[in-house]
Every structure is written in structure tokens, then in C-alpha cells.
């Protein structure tokens, strides 16, 4: 099979097909779904997709359905170990609840960032961007 696919590692994604996978995107989003298809650019097609939102040791799932991810946005793909998945010490809460928590955190972080930037500016430093600007 591998010999038919000239792109070796993308070729090795064959064994992920029809498995439950976690895809991490460049904007930090975590997508969980059934891996259906891919190509040499790491474009992915997934089915029964949910976006999983995390906040500390809690999570919530937001339904998406079928998703085609353009390869350039992919950071990593991991196969989910179905047994390990049942053992992880995370608690599911509602999407609304997790969104309030995440928003609270972001507001706080934005405030802190502004304070930090103001202090650094006094010393002649230029704003260096924040987490997530790394790519």
C-alpha cells in the first residue's frame, strides 16, 4: 500500500482512516472526529466532528458534523486511545458554562497583557504579540 503513495508519512496516515482522531489546528482549536480521508498536503476529511473546548480540567463539545480541514492549518493529528479516553480525569460541562469560563479567562489575560505592554513600552520595548502568534 505504502509503495502506491509517493509521500511516505502522509502515506502512513492510512492506518488512521476510520479511527477516532484528535486534530490540533494552528489557532489552538481541538477537533475530534472520525478520520475519513486525507491527501499529501495533510488536508483532512472528518465525519461526526465535534470541537472540544477545554478549560483547566473541564471540557465541552460543540457539534460540527462533517469537516474538511485545509492542511496548512493542521498542527498535529493523534489517534485517540479509546480505553485511555475513558480514564482521563476530565469533567464534561455544558458549552455555555465553558464559554463563560473561557471568556472570563480571556478578558483577564487581555487586561494583564495591556498592563504588561504599557510597562514595557515605558522601557522602550515594542509589543511582541501574544500566545498563538507563534506560527
Amino acid at each position, binding site marked *: 500500500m505504502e509503495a502506491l503513495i509517493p509521500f511516505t508519512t502522509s502515506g502512513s496516515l492510512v492506518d488512521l482512516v476510520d479511527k477516532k482522531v484528535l486534530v490540533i489546528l494552528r489557532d489552538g482549536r481541538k477537533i475530534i472526529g472520525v478520520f475519513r480521508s486525507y491527501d499529501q498536503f495533510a488536508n483532512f476529511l472528518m465525519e461526526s466532528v465535534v470541537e472540544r473546548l477545554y478549560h483547566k480540567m473541564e471540557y465541552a463539545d460543540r457539534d460540527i458534523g462533517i469537516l474538511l480541514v485545509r492542511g496548512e492549518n493542521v498542527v498535529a493529528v*493523534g*489517534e485517540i*486511545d479509546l480505553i485511555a479516553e475513558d480514564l*482521563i480525569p*476530565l469533567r464534561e460541562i455544558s458549552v455555555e458554562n465553558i464559554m463563560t469560563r473561557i471568556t472570563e479567562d480571556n478578558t483577564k489575560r487581555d487586561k494583564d497583557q495591556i498592563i504588561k505592554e504599557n510597562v514595557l513600552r515605558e522601557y522602550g520595548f515594542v509589543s511582541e504579540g501574544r500566545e498563538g502568534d507563534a506560527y
Partner: protein
Amino acid sequence: MLFFSFFKTLTDQVITVELKNDLCITGTLKSVDQFLNIRLDGITVEDPERHPHMMAVKNCFIRGSVVRYVRMGARSVDTTLLEDATRRGEFMVRVLKGLRVD
């Protein structure tokens, strides 16, 4: 191409890949391709508390373009061989030979 060959010699060794989002993944290198996409098996993550989503993930495919560093044991690298290959410009030599054969 030199580093593609180099990474191929590292297969089945334990390496740590640091991504541009500061996530560090340690695992056994299963395969690598021309884009330096990396396939790791039996992975563990540095600081799992900060990355709870990785807890249930056991193997992963990392897109080459998001890798910042790859860390490996000093013993996995034959630096003299690597230096020689660099000086010779092994890839260019092969290309030239290929042209002559044609």
C-alpha cells in the same frame, strides 16, 4: 534531502519534538517524509496539565511546518558522518552522477 535521510536514520529512536506552540511531544519516531512530517508512537507530553487534550492520544502525526526543534540523544547522531555528508554536498553529487548516467 540530507536532513530527510538523517531523520530516516533516527527511526525507532525516542525523540522529543518541540512545536511552535511550545508543546513538547516525546515518542518513538515511526516515520518521516520529504516535508519532515513526523509520525510518533507511544507519545508523552511535557506538562500534561497544560495540555489535557493529549492525555488520551497515544500516537500522532506532526506536520513538518509546525516543528520548532527536534531533540535527540547525542548517541543517536553520528556527527562525523553528518559533517562529511555536508562537505561533500552528497545530494548535489548524486544529482550530477544521475545526469551523467542519463
